[in-house]
């Protein structure tokens, strides 16, 4: 029998998160940021340097000449893409090819994370909420699944049976393990010393109205809506698929109507597919 303690102990043995991407996000938010500052931060992370060169030379960007220095690659890709690639690089290191417990490939898992990040950012823009960390928090909202997956995997038939009895994804996790991916996600954030916004998003993205830190309530609610919409769109469909509940509180907070959701979906799709490709390029041999 798996216990909560086994799982929390497992979190302690997770590899470190290099945090280059978070440093880059911090630099990006400065009004007077420079690409040379970017370059310096990146130069301390050899795996990121290698992946940025790979990305710059990929067929995706279609540059005819060989890009072999990092400064050129950064200039070519632009600060935003470099930052996205940095997160993809960090998650890529810890993601197994398949999250077996959720029956989802890492490619589809990343696509889901990309969808949540992009939709949440678009909600913030539309609703005129400044939320600096929202893109990063959206990308990293499901960290708990990285650990929980290995435990669900030990009993796949129980997982499927419980979903058939109309339990939501987090209820199934609670029933099987006594803990869900939200709580585990929060513990991972604490271990990796991620910001309070990212930690609150991990903990409360399935029940945003319970968010403890008042200053994180907007960002958690927006990620919750984005998460629900991306599953609706079929972005990152896992074993629990559409078995989730929407918080009326979050919808009311941003006065979200069906036509708002449809507009968000149509406007976000191209960016989601593009960001999904970045991960595939980095992951490709």
């Amino acid at each position: 029998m798996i216990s909560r303690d086994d799982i929390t102990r497992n979190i302690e043995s997770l590899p470190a998160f290099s945090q280059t991407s978070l440093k880059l996000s911090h630099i990006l938010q400065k009004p007077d940021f420079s690409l040379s500052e970017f370059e310096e931060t990146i130069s301390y992370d050899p795996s990121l340097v290698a992946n940025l060169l790979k990305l710059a030379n990929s067929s995706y960007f279609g540059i005819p000449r060989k890009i072999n220095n990092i400064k050129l690659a950064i200039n070519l890709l632009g600060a935003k893409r470099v930052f996205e690639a940095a997160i993809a690089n960090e998650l890529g290191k810890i993601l197994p090819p398949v999250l077996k417990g959720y029956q989802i490939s890492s490619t589809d898992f990343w696509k889901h994370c990309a969808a949540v990040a992009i939709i949440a950012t678009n909600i913030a823009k539309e609703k005129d909420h400044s939320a600096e960390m929202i893109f990063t928090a959206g990308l990293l909202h499901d960290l708990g699944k990285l650990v929980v997956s290995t435990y669900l995997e030990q009993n796949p038939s129980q997982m499927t049976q419980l979903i058939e009895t109309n339990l939501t994804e987090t209820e199934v996790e609670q029933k099987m393990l006594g803990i869900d991916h939200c709580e585990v996600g929060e513990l991972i954030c604490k271990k990796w010393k991620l910001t309070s916004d990212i930690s609150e998003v991990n903990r409360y993205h399935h029940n945003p109205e319970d968010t403890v830190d008042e200053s994180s309530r907007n960002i958690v609610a927006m990620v919750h809506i984005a998460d629900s919409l991306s599953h609706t769109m079929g972005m990152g469909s896992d074993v629990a698929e559409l078995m989730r509940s929407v918080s009326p509180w979050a919808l009311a907070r941003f006065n979200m109507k069906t036509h708002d959701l449809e507009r968000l979906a149509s406007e976000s799709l191209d960016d989601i597919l593009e960001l999904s490709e970045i991960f595939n390029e980095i992951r490709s041999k």
Partner: protein
Amino acid sequence: MSSITVQIADYKVSSSPEDTIITYALGSCIAVILYDPVSKVGGMIHYMLPLSKTSPEKAAVKPAMFADTGIPLLFQEFYKAGGNKNTMTIRVTGGGKLYEDNGTFDIGKRNYTILRKMLWKNGYSILAEDVGDSKSRTAKLEISTGKLLVKSRGEEIEL
């Protein structure tokens, strides 16, 4: 045998017997599948939203994102490839919904309603369908036989 994938907001038509047309993770999106058993032409669209007025700019570039701009294109291509209106069948799948929601996210139902209206207006009927519920589906059409398999939560049914 070659497999043709229909991405979200796209459609594909084939008359090559060795082809299989497949689409993944429909969520609330809908797949409409046309097949003519006589000429052995098949087509599939994977549209995401009901109406192009949501974003006319996106509809101009990706018409298959919306039911009203995408479905007519699928029919046109299907006829161009040799499909016949008198012998063809129409099958439909997808249109899932989130388990617990006050209706705000029920884009699947809206996707389905517009499809029914469009088909009814033009005198078409649906032969078989597997729509709704909190299921995300994958659909696979064999061009040589017209066999259509719909898979969800590890279970596969023939439609």
